């Protein structure tokens, strides 16, 4: 049972510092940066599709695509490298950028495996979209945030929703030509619920820059069924030219991507 004394207030309510003009602002951080491997790719990069994975299921699926090539990384000065392995690993605290080439179409994958605070999200979003990387289309993969969801989420059922920018909904590319939605057939995220953090910053940036963007959120945050669902979604709608069938469904019980009970307990009481 939750402890009412230490329980976080529901998200629609404010902390006192949220309503204090004179609260001490956070210490300024060095700006994040993009680092590309040698030889440095032509800049800006103009992928036909930029896929940004934030959720555990999407990270699992994309990590196991063997034909991707590591081309760079997004560096957040506040995230230490200690503990990271030499070869990219799902356990690393990293934000690596990979290239997938399908015929003449460049697809970039960004696997965000480190926490990005809400205050940093706008800066990271600006770095990933619209400056050194100018994508034609963006797909963001995240999980439903139960604390911001105003409906019911059964832990033993899988859900998937989407939100799209106006350009994506109208099916417009840069030439004003029509085109179909990237994730057809998915329900829109219900009105009254919200998503925050990096996923929101990325989609908002797409909307304001008139880029075709889709945010796909799945539930639950972990588990074999949701990994299978995300894999199927990507295979059917996004990565047609790549065979994802060889990627297992994360049946390894030791993996934090399978078991809900292995999900880190994020209470401030235990530090």
């Amino acid at each position, binding site marked *: 049972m939750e402890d009412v004394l230490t329980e976080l207030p529901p998200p629609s309510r404010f902390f006192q510092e949220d309503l204090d003009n*004179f609260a001490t602002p956070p210490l300024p951080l060095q700006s994040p940066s993009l680092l590309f491997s040698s030889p440095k790719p032509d800049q800006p990069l103009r992928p036909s599709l930029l896929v940004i994975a934030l959720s555990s299921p999407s990270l699992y699926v994309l990590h196991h695509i063997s034909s991707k090539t590591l081309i760079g990384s997004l560096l957040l000065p506040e995230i230490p490298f200690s503990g990271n392995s030499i070869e990219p690993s799902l356990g690393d605290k990293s934000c690596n950028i990979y290239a997938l080439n399908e015929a003449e179409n460049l697809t970039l994958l960004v696997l965000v495996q480190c926490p990005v605070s809400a205050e940093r999200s706008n800066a990271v979003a600006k770095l990933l979209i619209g400056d050194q990387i100018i994508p034609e289309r963006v797909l963001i993969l995240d999980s439903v945030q139960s604390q911001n969801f*105003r409906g019911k989420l059964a832990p033993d059922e899988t859900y998937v929703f989407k939100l799209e920018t106006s350009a994506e909904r109208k099916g417009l590319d840069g030439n004003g030509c029509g085109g179909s939605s990237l994730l057809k057939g998915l329900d829109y995220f219900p009105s009254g619920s919200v998503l925050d953090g990096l996923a*929101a910053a990325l989609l908002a940036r797409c909307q304001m820059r008139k880029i075709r963007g889709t945010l796909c959120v799945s539930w639950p945050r972990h588990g074999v069924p949701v990994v299978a669902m995300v894999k199927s979604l990507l295979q059917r709608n996004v990565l047609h030219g790549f065979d994802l069938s060889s990627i297992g469904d994360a049946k390894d019980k030791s993996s934090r991507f399978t078991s809900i009970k292995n999900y880190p307990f994020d209470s401030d009481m235990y530090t």
Partner: protein
Amino acid sequence: MEFIIEEGKSLNNETSTLILPALSIGNVGQLAVDLLVSSTRAERIGYLDDPYILPCVGNDAYGPTPCGELALPLEAYDSRNNGVALVQQRSPVVKGMMVEFAKNLADFAVDTGMKHVVVLSSLEFMRLQKIDTSSGLQIYYLSSANADGTDDCCERLGWKKLQEYNPAQRTWKFLSTLAEGNVMQEDSLPFEDEPEDEDYYPSLPFAALFSCFKAKGIRVTCLLCYCSEGDNTPEAFSLAEETSKLLGLSLNNPHGEGGKWLIPFSWRTVYGPPPDTSMF
């Protein structure tokens, strides 16, 4: 702060009044702006991109049937037949950056030719010195019309000036200095002693907005009501109603669940889903 106008949209040249919420207890200002946007059938004309607002996205908040139109943290609406613009804020400001955020909003108001800004907010009920239950929810106000914060228009509507406004009080003075850009906000407050009761009101977001708009020479009126946290939609209706009286808004809606007010679609789940009754 960048004002990004949607394709094919524009701000009406006749629009000279801006309504916006201040973050406050119970989200009352934001709920009131929701009602006003929905009921004046204001059209979204663009977004405000500000580095000090935290990100959020959602599906269309107003309906009648949300069909995937994105809702972003800071949106600008125009109600042409009423000559008012509205800005809705859906997420908090980065801690400690409220005054900077308020300055950016004030610059936006200047750049778009606004002559009058109406700020909607609520105050914590525990702070109310004297409870008067005789006449329902009392509306308080603060205006830049006079140096002492009074405004004859507001008095005629039966509102009471916020007694806790004292431009000579140290924190109100410090806030005014910050708003005018005469000092950098390097420390939280230039006073070493513990904050007093008098320091509370100028520490609130509505005070930052009031001071920054006033510093730019824009007429500003703050509408305030006291409340506790809970279901704050009644307070939102009251604030929206008083705003409508102040500005003479035209609300042409058929009588329905909210009377002349068109209740936003997103309000159906504003306080979460109904409880699970299967256990009974």
